[in-house]
Structure formats: structure tokens, C-alpha cells
């Protein structure tokens, strides 16, 4: 559904941000894009909704070349939530922020009304309906950004560092709704340094270093590779680390509950 074919991208300042990228993202999957600072993750994501076009090579989305379709028509199907909420929010009220994309992409007024109400309530923003987005806390701004994008019901959701500035309670809420959206058939792409957050989602993992894709695969396989972790400034999630150090052969647990059960079972207590 999303295909990168020999993609290179050179910034206006002459620096090559993407090198020979070949990548295929399948529909209805959760994907994680990881790697150290300044390694090209955000640049790659911006090629998916056509905000950036390859210097050479091609990006195909839903079978169409991004060089030949407008960003607007791609955005309807691919929603992107930026790392810095302040770069995204611009309307005078929370209500208008959510309505902006919806008005552009949806014509049926009943659907529009339903989706607006849904976005407002699902993200606990009802009480701020007439408040300026600038007055919200960092965590609330992030929720508003996601709500505004999900309101127009895109098929693909790209989240750039969604957990920065979120406390544990908000992170767990986010984990649940990402997993629910995926079950409803949406394709999710998450850029994040927060590997403990990604771990329970069991995403397909794409590791980048210096503009190149180093490896793609299951999170367990990627994070078992010591040499790769050293090269890419990544750290092993604690549950996988524990499983490897204890030399347990069965599939590592996704969360604490699974880990507790497994340990008790193996230990026969």
C-alpha cells in the first residue's frame, strides 16, 4: 500500500537525508520507525503524504506516484500528527481546529456532525470546545492534534513522537486507542524514541541510521541484535532484555501481566 523504490532525498542545503530507501508498508499494520537523532525518520514520513518528493526514485501510495498527486488528495487518506503540536495548531478555538480538516474533506453534513462529536468526546476535549488551543497543556494540545486528524477518518495515521510530554496515564490511554484504531483496520506508523511504549504494540520495526534503512522486521528480532543496537543508539526494552538474560525460549511477554504469569508458570509457583 505504501512503497518506497530506490528513494534518495537531498535537502536544499545539499545534505542527503535519505539514501537508497526501499520499503514496503502493508495495509492494516502497526509500524515503528526508530533510530537516533537526525537520522531521517521524519523526512521519510513526510514522503508518505507527499509533503516531500524524492530527489530520485519513487514513492507509491495506494498505487499512485506521489509526484503525480496533490498533497491535499493524499492528506485525506493519510493523516499526519507532527512532533511539535505548535506547528500544527492554528485555529482560534478547539472546535474550529477539529472542523478545519473535516470541512475540507467531508461533504455529508450528518457524517460531519457525528465525526466532530466523536473526536471531541473521545479525546476528552468537550470542555474546551470554545477555548483557544494555545491555552491547553502540552498533553492536551497533542490530543487535539490527533483528534483533528482522526476526525476526517484517514486510512493511514502517522504519529511523530506522540509520547513526548505525556505522563504515564496519558501514554496508556494512547496505547489503547492506537491498538483499537488498528483493529478497526487503520494502518499506523509511529516515529518514537520511547521503545518501552512501542513494545506492547508489537509493531513491524524499521531501523534507520544516517539516512539509510539498516533493518526491518519484528521488534523481538531487531532488538535481539546487539551490534545493531550499538550502531543505532537504541536500547532493548526491559522485558525482552530480561527474557534474553534469563535465556527463556518462549515468546517474550508484551506487558507486565503477561510477564508475571509467565514467570510464575515457569517457576512452578
Amino acid at each position, binding site marked *: 500500500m505504501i512503497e518506497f523504490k530506490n528513494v534518495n532525498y537531498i535537502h536544499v542545503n545539499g545534505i542527503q537525508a535519505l539514501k537508497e530507501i526501499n520499503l514496503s508498508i502493508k495495509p492494516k499494520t502497526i509500524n515503528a520507525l526508530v533510530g537516533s*537523532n537526525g537520522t531521517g525518520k521524519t523526512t521519510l514520513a513526510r514522503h508518505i503524504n507527499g509533503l516531500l518528493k524524492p530527489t530520485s526514485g519513487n514513492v507509491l501510495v495506494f498505487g499512485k506516484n506521489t509526484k503525480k498527486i496533490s498533497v491535499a488528495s493524499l492528506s485525506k487518506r493519510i493523516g499526519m500528527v507532527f512532533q511539535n503540536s505548535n506547528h500544527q495548531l492554528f485555529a482560534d478555538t478547539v472546535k474550529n481546529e477539529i472542523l478545519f480538516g473535516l470541512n475540507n474533506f467531508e461533504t455529508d453534513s450528518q457524517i460531519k456532525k457525528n465525526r466532530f462529536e466523536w473526536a471531541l468526546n473521545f479525546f476528552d476535549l468537550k470542555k474546551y470546545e470554545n477555548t483557544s488551543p494555545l491555552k491547553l497543556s502540552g498533553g492536551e494540545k497533542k490530543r487535539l492534534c490527533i483528534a483533528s486528524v482522526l476526525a476526517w477518518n484517514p486510512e493511514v495515521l502517522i504519529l511523530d513522537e506522540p509520547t513526548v*510530554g505525556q505522563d*504515564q496515564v496519558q501514554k496508556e490511554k494512547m496505547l489503547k486507542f492506537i491498538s483499537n484504531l488498528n483493529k478497526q483496520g487503520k494502518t499506523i506508523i509511529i516515529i518514537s524514541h520511547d521503545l518501552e511504549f512501542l513494545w506492547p504494540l508489537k509493531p513491524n520495526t524499521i531501523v534507520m541510521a544516517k539516512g539509510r534503512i539498516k533493518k526491518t522486521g519484528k521488534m523481538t528480532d531487531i532488538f535481539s541484535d546487539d551490534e545493531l543496537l550499538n550502531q543505532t*543508539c537504541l*536500547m532493548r526494552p526491559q522485558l525482552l532484555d530480561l527474557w534474553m538474560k*534469563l535465556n527463556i525460549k518462549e515468546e517474550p511477554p508484551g506487558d507486565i501481566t503477561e*510477564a508475571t504469569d509467565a*514467570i*510464575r508458570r515457569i517457576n512452578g*509457583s
Partner: protein
Amino acid sequence: MKEKSIIKFENFSFRYDSANEFILKNINLEINKNELVILAGPTGCGKSTLLRSIIGLIPHMHGGEYKGRVIVDQLVVNDVKITDLAKKAGFVFQNPENQIFMFSIERDIVFGLENLGTSRTIMKERVDSILSLLKIEHLATKAPHELSDGEKQKAALAGILAMQPKILILDEPTSLLDPKTAIDFINIVNDLRKKIGMTIVIVEHRLDLVVGIADKLIILSNGKIIENNNPKQVLHYSNQLIPEIGIPVISRLYRNLAKSNYDFDNVIVTVKDMVKEMRRKKFND
């Protein structure tokens, strides 16, 4: 009598001019010399206000209702000038771009020293030793905008360390860094603390990076201190742990297993501790 504590809050409360409510309420706290202390709590609980009160930004820059006393290395914050406090305590901001501003990193590092009236020979020595300590000699003549986030963070730290503060205050220093770079950064300041003696107060959301090396974990909630103890004690025995605190995965696993009557001989903070404990129990042999 030798004073053990270097930072002391006595019945301290503060309300910003613009607010109706007190953001910090009757804080009593002592931080000992050369300790590394983590400050945690949900957003808006008063962490930044507490830090500002140590370096004197409160009350000298931010006005408001001020009750009680804060004593920093025997100076009463309210009674002395902010410049006197600057010699005692250095502050590294969350966003290094708020901090580094000169046209080269070298110039940025000497800026603080020049203001303190340091001689040229000493300045040269200090700059060289700080650059080599942080392994950023190659950045000396670079401009701030040429640096990556991790390098900026180190440059900001270098400028503060050059002044050799007794107290180092770090406000979410690793939020922009990838996991390995974040750990390197924490290890550098911790090694330095041991080598030259320094008290460190750090606000850090990724507790897994710091619980292994910290002496105390203080939790603030609604302007009050609800926990102040050894991190192991807090993470494992506290009933006050509010859900907003990002308790490391391994500590949550430990709590869960302990709850289901799993006997542990030692308190566990890291994966290494857990592995040792499991091996002792001949787990999976």
C-alpha cells in the same frame, strides 16, 4: 558544626502573582551534599517552581507571595543577590536552545566565567578541561546551529560546568535525546559528581535511566512532597505512587510478583538485579 545539607527548604510556600492558588505548599526538604536527587511528579505539580526557588529566579525574577525560607549553601535565597547564587548553583534548561547563544561553543563556555571575573589563564584551562571531559573538543569552534540535539545539550552543560558549581540542576536534560545518548549524558554528570563532588537535582521522566544511580527520589504532587526516600524504597514500598509517574517496567514487574507472594531477597531496580535474583532462585535451570 559541619552542615550536612546544602539545600534546605523551611516551611516554604509560593504563589505566582498571576495565580490564585499556591503552587508550592509548606515544603520542608533537605538535600545533602554530593547527593543525586530525582524530582518527579505530574505536569504542573510545581517541579519547575521548586527548581527556580533554588537558583533564586524565585523571588528575584518571578514575583509572588513568598513564605518560609530557602537556604542554599548557607545563603538565604531571599536575602542575597541572584549573582551570588549563580556561583553556587548551575541550571541546565530543558531546551538547550534557550541557553547557548554565542557564535561559537568555546565563546559560549567562557561567557559565564567572564561574568564572574575569572582570569584569562584560568579560563583557558577550564575550557580545555571541560571540552575534553565531555569529549566535545571538536565542537569548540562550531556555532550552536551546527550542532545536533545531543551536542547542544552537552554544550549547554559545558557552559555551566565551567563555572564549577557546587550544585547542578538539570530540568529534563534528556527529553530530546535518543536512549543511548541519554544514558551517556547521565553517566557523564554522575561520574563528574563522584570525581569533583557536586550535588545534582534532576527532573527526569524516564526514571529507568536514573533510579540505579540516585540517592533519593522525591515525588511532588499538587505542590506537596508526597515521597522523599531512597528510590528503591519509594518504587517498591510506597503506597503514594500516583499513576502519572512513569515507574520503570522492571519495577512494576517486581511489584506485581511481590504482590502475588513471590519472595524476593533483595529490592530490584534494574534488569540486572532481577536476573541475579532469579538465578539465585535457580529459575529456569
